[in-house]
């Protein structure tokens, strides 16, 4: 198993965090992992992204140029990384902020209205978790419960009160992905 994923979005959308959660969870599950962020002045207000590798083998290159999955929370990230995704790979995009579909026919594409769902739950800041839930349900890269365990390690103690809210967001993401799976998966899977 080798999952190579790019999480990308605006600076404040928490893409580095969900990447770290997957990395941490992979480590807990005994996989080989690495996490590589974008950094520097371009982070201010601009876009942020991180690449995560979760693998049963030793991670050789921590840099990912042909990701198996892309989670794009805003339009600039979707535009930038869509061409990178491996044929047969997966693109999850935040349909609350992105109207047009990614221009690829050889990958699986899942639209997640992450902001709307987060707002429904009551906190826009957990849109990233909704997307993460959809990603976990689709790829099973790491277990959802392990991600919740990882959250306890990654989030500072004073923010542990947010974990139940995050769990709810993850669950909604999973739900969206399952509906999509049972409806569309059959016909698209040929692309794999």
């Amino acid at each position: 198993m080798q999952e190579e994923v790019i999480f990308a979005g605006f600076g404040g959308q928490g893409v580095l965090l969900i990447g770290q959660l997957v990395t941490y969870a992979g480590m807990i599950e005994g996989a080989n992992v690495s996490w590589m962020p974008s950094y520097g002045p371009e982070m201010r207000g601009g876009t942020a992204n991180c690449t995560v590798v979760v693998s049963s083998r030793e991670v050789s290159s921590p840099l990912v140029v042909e990701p198996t999955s892309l989670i794009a929370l805003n339009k600039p990230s979707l535009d930038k990384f869509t061409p990178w995704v491996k044929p047969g790979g997966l693109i999850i995009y935040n349909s609350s902020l992105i109207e047009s579909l990614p221009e690829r026919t050889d990958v699986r594409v899942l639209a997640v209205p992450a902001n709307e769902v987060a707002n429904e739950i009551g906190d826009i800041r957990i849109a990233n978790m909704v997307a993460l839930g959809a990603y976990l349900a689709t790829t099973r890269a790491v277990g959802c419960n392990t991600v919740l365990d990882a959250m306890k390690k990654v989030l500072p103690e004073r923010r542990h009160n947010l974990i139940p809210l995050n769990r709810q967001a993850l669950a909604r993401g999973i739900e969206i992905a399952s509906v999509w799976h049972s409806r569309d998966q059959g016909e698209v899977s040929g692309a794999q």
Partner: protein
Amino acid sequence: MGEKVLMKGNEAIAEGAILADCRHFFGYPITPQNEIPEYMSRRMPEVGGVFLQAESEVAGSNMVYGAACAGARVMTTSSSPGISLMQEAISYVAGAELPCVFVNIVRGGPGLGGIQGSQADYFQATKGGGHGDYKLIVLAPASVQELMDLTVEAFDLADMYRNPVLLLGDAILGQMMEPVVIRERAKVDLPPKTWATTGAKGRPKNVITSLSLDPAKLEEHNLSLAEKYARISNEQVRYMTYMADDAETLLVAYGTSARIAQAAIDMARERGLKVGLFRPISLWPFPYDALQLTAQGSLRVLVVEMSLGQMVEDVRLATGNSKSVHFYGRTGGMTPTPREVLNEIERIVEEGI
């Protein structure tokens, strides 16, 4: 053995220094290594150590000079432009034989350059970036675990040989997170620092200087340094190989490029190409003999670097005229992709060069 924790490369260096009982840190902010001084500003007060943000790298590296004179385990960290400013102090600590640790989280140059990872400071690190006949022990980690382990070892090597040690990383290694096991530190027998300037209570005074106006004396000093460097060259050569035994094409790469090379090797092996890797870990002393031996059975050598080709010169020195030595590199903060390296492997194999 400790628990696995997920750490950023830069933090692993900082924590490694703490593990090695380094209690003095002087630094100046520069991307992509800011996590080190930031970590130290939090951590040093917790362990009763000193964190001081210097007014510049010139000052910071001379604070290192001072603390080393006083017998401290001391470190400073920076990135390329800052390391250039430290060359004066580096030459002085090498001349005065002071144990201390420098870290360069290399970024693209020359000049202000950029902030992405690069390996274009190899010459500066290994061939003497400052003036005079001197050598730094230069270690090149390739994972977050190695960043921590080699930082710990760097302090022991520095004390053992009374020589500055440079850890040569790059922005990718500094910024990435990987699991790290915090290992129990191996105890090493180290010579007491009888030379340190701690106050001449009950002993003749100690003087630390790199000045020597009599050229005969200075030559003598240089020759004794040379003797020490020869000893280090015998005792501290480090490298690793990957699938090198039956390799017809031998890749040579260090640090981040070694990991990219390894990914390319896996792809090449899937295609039935016999490719392997030689990874120098000590860049000085460079593993000339080991490389020559490893390369003996292969038809060709391909050096991969994140520069226009610097280590490739040492590889040519090692293999002599007996091998064709090819080079593939990206520079300015660009990173070769495994596929690019694979293409290059396929090209030279097909052309039989």
